[in-house]
């Protein structure tokens, strides 16, 4: 069990601030590092991986500084975003070399190749691999020493849906084993499908942290949208609009009907809705958050 701690870390390149006073703790399980391109995700992962020194602040693994400390790589496995990887080697040679550099051998390399299901192509030159195959061999090279921490920078880039699912399964298993898995992504559904916990980086700043629904709720100054269907939509609408927690209600036309409600105070609204319904004898048929997808959480955060 390992914990990565980023404490008030900033990193700038000349005048450009790539990461701005970020503090976060990444523990066992799968954590998604989410943010648009250029938000500073790679810079942050590079600091966590020991390839970049923080300009200020510290990045530590179980209390030990990561920068200029080779010994942390016994616990950390890194899957870089960049494509370059000794293309003149075969997949097997590459993974064996990585195992040897960890003080291990063929057996561990073979096991890692089996884990990523690349045995069938292990004797082909890496230069002949597709992007997804490269990604899996990179994974194998990071897994040879069974690290307690795995850092992956945009691991799903260029993967087809089947490969994506396989990698997600693998990362989920690793998280369930108690390993600390951190992956970055700018694609919301990837993070939504995989991560139990997310950290959001926007423009170099740590915008939010936690379960993505909880993050959504934390942003109380943002309207939450719900689709509500009930036995008497108009009566319900009239009762709800009287309360300041509701900013707007739209009545849906059509066979199904329903109300599109904008709530501005999440906590109050969630208590109000069942109370009002009970008092008026209205049956609630559907209550669904219509914008709890990560996509909308993200666009709010970016706009903020």
């Amino acid at each position, binding site marked *: 069990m390992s914990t990565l701690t980023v404490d008030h870390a900033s990193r700038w*390149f000349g005048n450009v601030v*790539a990461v701005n006073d970020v503090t976060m703790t990444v523990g066992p399980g799968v954590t998604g590092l989410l943010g648009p*391109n*250029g*938000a*500073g*995700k*790679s*810079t942050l*992962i*590079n600091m966590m*991986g*020991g*390839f*970049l*020194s923080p300009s200020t602040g510290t990045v530590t693994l179980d209390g030990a500084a990561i920068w*200029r400390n*080779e*010994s*942390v*790589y*016994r616990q*950390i*496995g*890194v899957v*870089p*975003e*960049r494509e*370059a*990887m*000794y293309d*003149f*080697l075969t997949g097997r040679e590459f993974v064996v*070399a*990585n195992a*040897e*550099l*960890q*003080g291990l051998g063929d057996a561990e390399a073979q096991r890692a190749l089996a884990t990523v299901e690349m045995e069938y192509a292990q004797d082909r030159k890496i230069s002949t691999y597709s992007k997804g195959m490269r990604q899996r061999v990179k994974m194998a*090279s*990071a897994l040879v020493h069974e690290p307690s921490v795995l850092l992956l*920078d945009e691991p799903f880039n260029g993967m087809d849906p089947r490969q994506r699912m396989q990698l997600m399964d693998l990362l989920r298993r690793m998280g369930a084993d108690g390993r600390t898995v951190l992956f970055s992504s700018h694609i919301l559904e990837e993070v939504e499908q995989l991560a139990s916990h997310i950290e959001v980086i926007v423009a170099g700043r740590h915008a939010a942290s936690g379960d993505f629904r909880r993050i959504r709720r934390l942003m109380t100054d943002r309207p939450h949208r719900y689709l509500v269907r009930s036995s008497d939509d108009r009566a319900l609408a009239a009762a709800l609009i009287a309360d300041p927690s509701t900013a707007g209600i739209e009545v849906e036309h059509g066979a199904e009907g329903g109300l599109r409600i904008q709530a501005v105070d999440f906590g109050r609204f969630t208590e109000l809705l069942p109370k009002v319904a009970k008092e008026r004898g209205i049956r609630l048929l559907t209550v669904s958050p219509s914008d709890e997808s990560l996509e909308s959480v993200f666009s709010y955060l970016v706009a903020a």
Partner: protein
Amino acid sequence: MYNPTVARLTYRALLGRRRALILFALPALLILIAAAVRAFNGADDQVAADVLGGFALATMVPLIGVIAGTGAIGPEIDDGSIVYLLSKPVKRPEIIFTKLIVAIAVTMVFSAVPTLIAGFVLNGNGQQVAVAYTVAALVASIAYSALFLLLGTVSRHAVVIGLVYALVWETLFGSLIEGARTLSVQQWALALAEKVTGDSLISSDVSLPTAVTLLAAVTVGATWFAGRKLRTLTLAGEE
């Protein structure tokens, strides 16, 4: 200090690239020139010394040093694949030392060996000219490898800077400016060659003790500094 895995990767990267063709072309050219000179001119000690000094030591050895020295690490830093070495519990100086050994070995094989062959072709090692220049090439290989390995670690333009150093500084300024010769790997190597022949055929502007001191200082200093630079090598993201 020597890591066989790093060495294997470095050898394969060095000899697998298109650039490696120059490693074969230059020695082939030297031997060809030597054969032609011998055929047209017969065996002449002075001519042998001129060819080995003017082409082998002054041009071929530094060029091969640039290719092997910068090529042992530069491309990996450029394309980012060095991350697979750096994300391992391997000491940075160990990586540099291993790459230095590989660069020296490659430079020696592709410069000293053909120099010896060319020397024998030219005048059958008369007055020890072939052996003297081979010793010079061996010694220069070590210093050039260390210098250019450092260059490959600190600069993305290592090949260009290396070529400018090898051709402009060593060849041009070396022949024009007195002081530049003291700071020339070629002159240091010549000081050793001079000692081997013990004859007026080869002369260096630098005394033997100075040459040996500077050779050792440059090799050790460059290697130490490269190890230090690699420890703090920053891999910027692609953002």
